[in-house]
C-alpha cells in the first residue's frame, strides 16, 4: 500500500474517519444538529477529495479495489445523494423525538459500503461492500422502532437481504471454484481461454444475478420493495431507492463489462426476461395504488427495468445511457421521496393519496416540485427524465432490441396513468382544508431546491454531464 494508494483511497478514508468522528461526538454530547452537521461536513470533504484522487487514477489499490474515473464518478454521485439524504433526514427526524444520532453513523457506513462496491474489482470487496451497505440499512430501515411498520420492514429486509446475499455468495463460490480467481480482470482472461469448459461459471453467474436482482429490486425478486419503501422512514426509503440501487448497478455494469458477459447468450436472455418482466410488473402493480410510497416503489422497479434494457445494449452508448439515466433517476427519486419526507409530520408519513388532494392550492411550490418530479419519472421534456428515457431508447435502438423497446414504450404509457393519478390529486380542488401543514425545515427546502434546479438544468442543457460521462473509460 504505497503513498499513491492512500491518495487514491482518500474519499474512502475520509468517510471512515467521519464515521469515527461522529461516533465520538455522540459519545461526548448527544445533539442531533451536531451529528448531522458533522456528517454533512464528512461527506462534503469526501466529495472534495474526489478531485484530489482524480489526478492519480487509474490505480489498482490492493487486488480488491480499482479506483478509476468510472468509480470516482459514481462515488461522487453517491456522496452527493447521501448529502441530500442527510439534509432530508435532518428535517424529517427533527420533527420526531427520540435519539437520532445513530442514524448518521449507519448512513456514513452505508455510503462507505457503496463507495467500496462501486470501486471493487474483487469478489471479496464486492461482498464486503455489499454487506457494509446492507447491515447499516437493516438498522436504518427499522430506525423509528417505536412504530410497527418500520420494524416489520426491517425484519423483512434483513431476512431477505441475508437470503439473497447467501445465494450470491454461493454463486461466487461456484465461479471461484470454476475459475480459480476472484479478481474481475483475471476472470476475463480465464473465460476467453480456448477449450475452457464453463462448468460452474454460468450457474454461478446466475446465482450472482439473483443477488443483484434482489438488491436492484428487479422483477422476480421485487416482491419485498413496496413493503420496505412504505415501512421505512421516507429519507431512508430514498436512500434505499437511490444509493443502494445505484451502487449495485454501477458494479453490475463494470463487472459484466469486464468479463464480456455479452458473449454468454444464456446470461443475456436471463437479463432480457428480467427486464421485460420488471417493466411490466412495476407499471402494472402501481396502476390503482393509492399509497404514494408504494407507487414510487413500483415505479422504481419499472425504471430499473428500463435501465436493464440499456444495460444489455453493449458499447459506448450503453455506458452513457446508463450513466445519465442513473443521475436523472437519482435526482427524481430523491426529489419524490424528499417531498414525502418534507410533508410527513410527527403523526406519520404523508403517504396516502388523500394527503396530496388539492396540494397545489395549499402549497404551490411544493406541489409544482412534486409535479415536476412526476413528469420526470414519466419522461416529459424539460426534465432530465426525458433525456434519460431518450438515451435508453437510443441505446436500445442502436442494437435493434425492438421487442424490448416496444414493451418499454407500452409499459411507460401505463406508467403515465398512475403518475397522472397523483398529479390529478394534487391539482384537484380540495374541500378547503386550508391548513398549510408543518412548515418546511430549511435543510429540506435547500435539498429540494438543489434537486429541482439540477433536474431542469439537465433536462434543458445535458451537454456538460454527457461530456463527463463520455470520458469515463468503460469498466
Amino acid at each position, binding site marked *: 500500500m504505497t503513498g499513491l494508494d492512500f491518495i487514491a483511497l482518500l474519499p474512502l478514508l475520509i468517510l471512515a474517519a467521519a464515521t469515527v468522528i461522529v461516533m465520538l461526538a455522540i459519545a461526548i454530547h448527544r445533539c442531533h444538529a451536531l451529528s448531522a452537521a458533522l456528517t454533512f461536513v464528512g461527506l462534503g470533504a469526501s466529495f472534495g477529495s474526489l478531485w484530489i484522487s482524480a489526478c492519480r487514477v487509474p490505480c489498482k489499490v490492493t487486488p480488491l479495489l480499482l479506483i478509476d474515473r468510472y468509480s470516482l464518478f459514481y462515488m461522487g454521485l453517491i456522496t452527493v445523494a447521501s448529502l441530500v439524504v442527510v439534509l432530508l433526514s435532518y428535517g424529517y427526524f427533527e420533527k420526531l423525538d427520540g435519539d437520532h444520532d445513530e442514524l448518521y453513523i449507519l448512513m456514513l457506513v452505508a455510503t462507505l459500503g457503496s463507495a467500496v462496491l462501486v470501486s471493487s474489482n474483487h469478489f471479496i470487496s464486492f461482498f464486503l461492500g455489499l454487506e457494509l451497505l446492507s447491515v447499516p440499512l437493516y438498522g436504518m430501515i427499522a430506525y423509528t422502532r417505536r412504530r*410497527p411498520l418500520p420494524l*416489520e420492514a426491517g425484519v423483512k429486509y434483513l431476512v431477505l437481504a*441475508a*437470503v439473497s446475499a*447467501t445465494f450470491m455468495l454461493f454463486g461466487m463460490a461456484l465461479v*471461484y*471454484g470454476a475459475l480459480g480467481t476472484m479478481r474481475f480482470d483475471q476472470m476475463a482472461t480465464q473465460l476467453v481461454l480456448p477449450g475452457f469448459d464453463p462448468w460452474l461459471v454460468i450457474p454461478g453467474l446466475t446465482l450472482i444475478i439473483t443477488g443483484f436482482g434482489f438488491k436492484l429490486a428487479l422483477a422476480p425478486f421485487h416482491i419485498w420493495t413496496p413493503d420496505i419503501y412504505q415501512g421505512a422512514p421516507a429519507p431512508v426509503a430514498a436512500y434505499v431507492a437511490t444509493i443502494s440501487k445505484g451502487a449495485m448497478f454501477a458494479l453490475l455494469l463494470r463487472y459484466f463489462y469486464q468479463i464480456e458477459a455479452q458473449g454468454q447468450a444464456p446470461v443475456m436472455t436471463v437479463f432480457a426476461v428480467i427486464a421485460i418482466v420488471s417493466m411490466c410488473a412495476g407499471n402494472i402493480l402501481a396502476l390503482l*395504488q393509492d399509497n404514494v410510497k408504494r407507487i414510487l416503489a413500483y415505479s422504481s422497479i419499472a425504471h430499473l427495468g428500463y435501465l436493464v434494457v440499456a444495460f444489455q445494449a453493449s458499447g459506448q452508448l450503453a455506458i452513457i445511457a446508463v450513466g445519465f439515466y442513473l443521475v436523472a433517476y437519482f435526482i427524481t427519486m430523491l426529489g419524490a421521496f424528499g417531498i414525502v419526507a418534507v410533508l410527513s409530520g410527527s403523526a406519520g408519513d404523508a403517504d396516502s393519496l388523500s394527503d396530496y388532494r388539492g396540494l397545489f392550492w395549499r402549497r404551490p411550490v411544493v406541489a409544482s416540485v412534486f409535479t415536476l418530479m412526476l413528469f420526470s419519472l414519466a419522461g416529459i421534456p424539460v426534465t432530465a427524465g426525458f433525456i434519460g428515457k431518450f438515451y435508453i431508447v437510443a441505446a436500445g435502438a442502436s442494437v435493434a432490441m425492438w421487442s424490448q423497446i416496444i414493451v418499454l414504450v407500452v409499459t411507460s404509457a401505463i406508467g403515465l396513468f398512475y403518475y397522472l393519478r397523483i398529479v390529478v390529486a394534487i391539482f384537484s380542488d380540495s374541500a378547503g382544508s386550508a391548513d398549510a401543514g408543518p412548515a418546511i425545515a430549511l435543510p429540506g427546502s435547500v435539498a429540494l431546491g438543489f434537486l429541482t434546479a439540477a433536474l431542469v438544468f439537465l433536462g434543458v442543457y445535458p451537454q456538460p454531464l454527457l461530456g463527463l460521462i463520455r470520458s469515463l473509460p468503460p469498466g
Partner: protein
Amino acid sequence: MLPIREGFIVAGILFTLGVVGVLVRRNLLFVLMSIEIMLNAAGLAFVIAGTRWGQPDGQVMFLFILAMAAAEVSVGLGLVLELYHQFKTLDTDAISRMKG
C-alpha cells in the same frame, strides 16, 4: 484424492436445507437459524473452492463470511427482541400489516 464435486454437493444440500428452513418456518428465530445454515454452506463451498485451487483465498472469504454472519445475527436478534417486545410473538406472518 479429495472429491471436490462431492464437497460442492454437500454444500449444495446444506444450502437448500437452509432455503427450506427460511421458506417453511414462521418463527423468526428459526428463520435466522436457517440463514446461518445457508451462510455456513456458502462458506464451506468457498473453502472447498479454495482448496481445489490450493489458495488460501477461500478461507479468507470464509473468515469474512463469519464476520458478516456475526454482524447480521446481532442485528437480527436485536430486531427479534424489539419484535417480541412490541408484538409479543415471533410469527412473521402475524406481524405483516402491509399488503397490496
